[in-house]
């Protein structure tokens, strides 16, 4: 094996892309902080137990694990929500207050995305603990939308649903509890074929099947909520619809340049989410750029029952999307000054003074003016200073030289 290889699924970031990645993360950090969230930095290594449990379990084959000297199993964190949940639970033992946490960090594993194995991805997200209701659902949605907008993303769609809706309809139709997870998954994946086959196999009546299939197509603009209010009269559905209505009314009143889409068949990760769920979508990206929702049962697993909601977005995906959109605001600027020539001590003095003024300044070791100018062009530097013994020549990229 050659010594310059790196393992499959990891990447080097350097030059412009490294710069853009940091800038993008900085913009997200700023946006989350502005929204009243506090940063948490959890360790890269955790006990594997943190990621286990009935709810939110990370598959062991997707986790990079090893043992410490006491024989306890450790994991490179395969997820960032669970460590934040662990932290919130630890803090909540003494004081049950509301916590607003955000994180930006790397997670590790063997995620399969687009047929490509990714072992390390950078994720940014917010989690809001200790309070539920329309207010916090709106707050987390606003925080999510704002974070996508500060990145300069355009033509965004925010797709909103509620995992309780399909469940409530199933219950009302007297679907046995053990069938519900399968059906919710089929409805979420809009797989009418599989749903029909499953229902027929279980001997479910044609009338009921029709009502279940309807859920697959219960998506569109926000007026889907009004249609649904007419059809699904049961109290549980009405409560959910009213809840979404109120949240969406708040979002609308803020007039973000974002289209709101509603999908009442949405039921992702049903062992995890318990309420409103949402995704951020862009026409230029084939999968969600942001996803989140309410997960009120997870905290209980850490010994502290508490309401919780949050979202996360993948930084590498955002970088790709920004490139697709031609957004350059995070691009690395060239050096602002290039200084070279002799005497060398004066060269360093000039560089120090430019840097003190806040200019990004580089040094050139070229010995002739021509070679110095070539280097300026090569590096794309606008302004240069070439010292020629006692003379100081200001050089502009266009070619003008001032003595």
């Amino acid at each position, binding site marked *: 094996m050659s010594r310059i290889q790196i393992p499959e699924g990891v990447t080097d970031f350097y030059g412009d892309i490294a710069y853009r990645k940091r800038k993008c993360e900085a913009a997200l950090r700023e946006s989350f902080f502005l929204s009243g969230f506090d940063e948490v930095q959890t360790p890269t290594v955790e006990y594997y137990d943190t990621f286990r449990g009935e709810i939110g379990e990370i598959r062991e084959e997707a986790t990079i694990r090893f043992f410490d000297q006491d024989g306890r199993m450790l994991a490179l964190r395969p997820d960032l929500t669970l460590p934040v949940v662990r932290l919130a639970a630890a803090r909540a033992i003494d004081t049950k207050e509301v916590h607003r946490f955000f994180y930006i960090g790397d997670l590790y594993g063997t995620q399969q995305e687009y*047929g490509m194995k990714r072992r390390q991805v950078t994720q940014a997200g917010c989690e809001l603990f200790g309070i539920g209701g329309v207010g916090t659902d709106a707050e987390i949605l606003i925080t999510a939308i704002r974070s996508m907008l500060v990145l300069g993303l355009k033509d965004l*769609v925010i*797709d909103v649903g509620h995992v309780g809706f399909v469940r409530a309809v199933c219950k009302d139709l007297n679907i046995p509890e053990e069938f519900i997870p399968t059906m919710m998954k089929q409805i979420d*994946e809009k797989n*009418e074929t599989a749903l029909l086959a499953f229902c027929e196999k279980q001997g479910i009546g044609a009338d009921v099947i029709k009502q279940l299939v309807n859920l697959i197509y219960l*998506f569109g603009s926000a007026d889907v909520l009004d249609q649904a209010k007419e059809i699904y009269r049961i109290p549980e559905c009405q409560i959910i619809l009213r809840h979404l209505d109120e949240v969406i009314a708040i979002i609308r009143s803020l007039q973000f340049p974002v289209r709101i*889409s509603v999908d009442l068949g949405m039921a992702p990760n049903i062992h995890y989410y318990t309420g409103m769920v949402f995704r951020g979508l862009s026409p230029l990206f*084939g*999968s969600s750029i942001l996803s989140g929702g309410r997960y009120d049962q997870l905290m209980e697993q850490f010994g502290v029952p508490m309401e919780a909601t949050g979202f996360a977005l993948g930084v590498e995906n955002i970088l790709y999307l920004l490139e697709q959109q031609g957004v350059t605001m995070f691009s690395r600027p060239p050096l602002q000054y290039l200084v070279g020539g002799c005497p060398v001590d004066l060269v360093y003095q000039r560089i120090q003074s430019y840097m003190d003024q806040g200019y990004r300044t580089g040094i050139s070791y070229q010995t002739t003016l021509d070679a110095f100018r070539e280097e300026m062009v090569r590096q794309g530097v606008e302004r240069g200073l070439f010292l020629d013994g006692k003379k100081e020549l200001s050089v502009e990229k266009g070619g003008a030289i001032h003595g």
Partner: protein
Amino acid sequence: MAKITVALAKGRLFQKSMEVFQQAGLDADDLTEDSRQLIIKGERAEFLIVKPVDVPVYVEHGVADVGICGKDTLLEKSGTNVLEMLDLGFAVCKLAFAGYGGTDPYQSGIRVATKYQNYARQIYRERGVSAEIISLSGSVELGPILGLSDVILDIVESGRTLKENGLSVLEEVANSSARLCVNRVSLKTKGKEMRSLVLRIREEWKP
């Protein structure tokens, strides 16, 4: 109005797939399978002519909003994140183990020649049977005939090819037919057009 990009599979799915989109009002009129052009642009839609196994890949990445491929392809590419929305009812066939009569496809250490290597692995993994999967890209029937493999896993329509080569179906493992695959994001970002396309096909298409 947003333009829809369609991934069309060359081969046995092509003709019917085109009819599906024509009937649904997309301008697929001068499409031919052997066109050298890779992208054919119309008023309301763009068509990509691709290999059948690649249809879900194009749709997953969102470079195509919608496509038609066989369930067999989806089974082989089971990790692919596409919405498999409708069964279009054509290109009906079965995925089956075949070989010389009396061979047990689930015996330990069996050698299987197939175009469906991922799906074959999954079948044996689920049964806890160790098997050697030999990946071929065509004429898999040659496997048992030449002694390269004990059985094959392949699609079977009429069973004629098998019969002519002295082989028979040992066990059927799945039903396949053409499926409408949709990108999850396109369904929302091109909401109006995509929704009405899917619903129109759902209401009107008869194979």
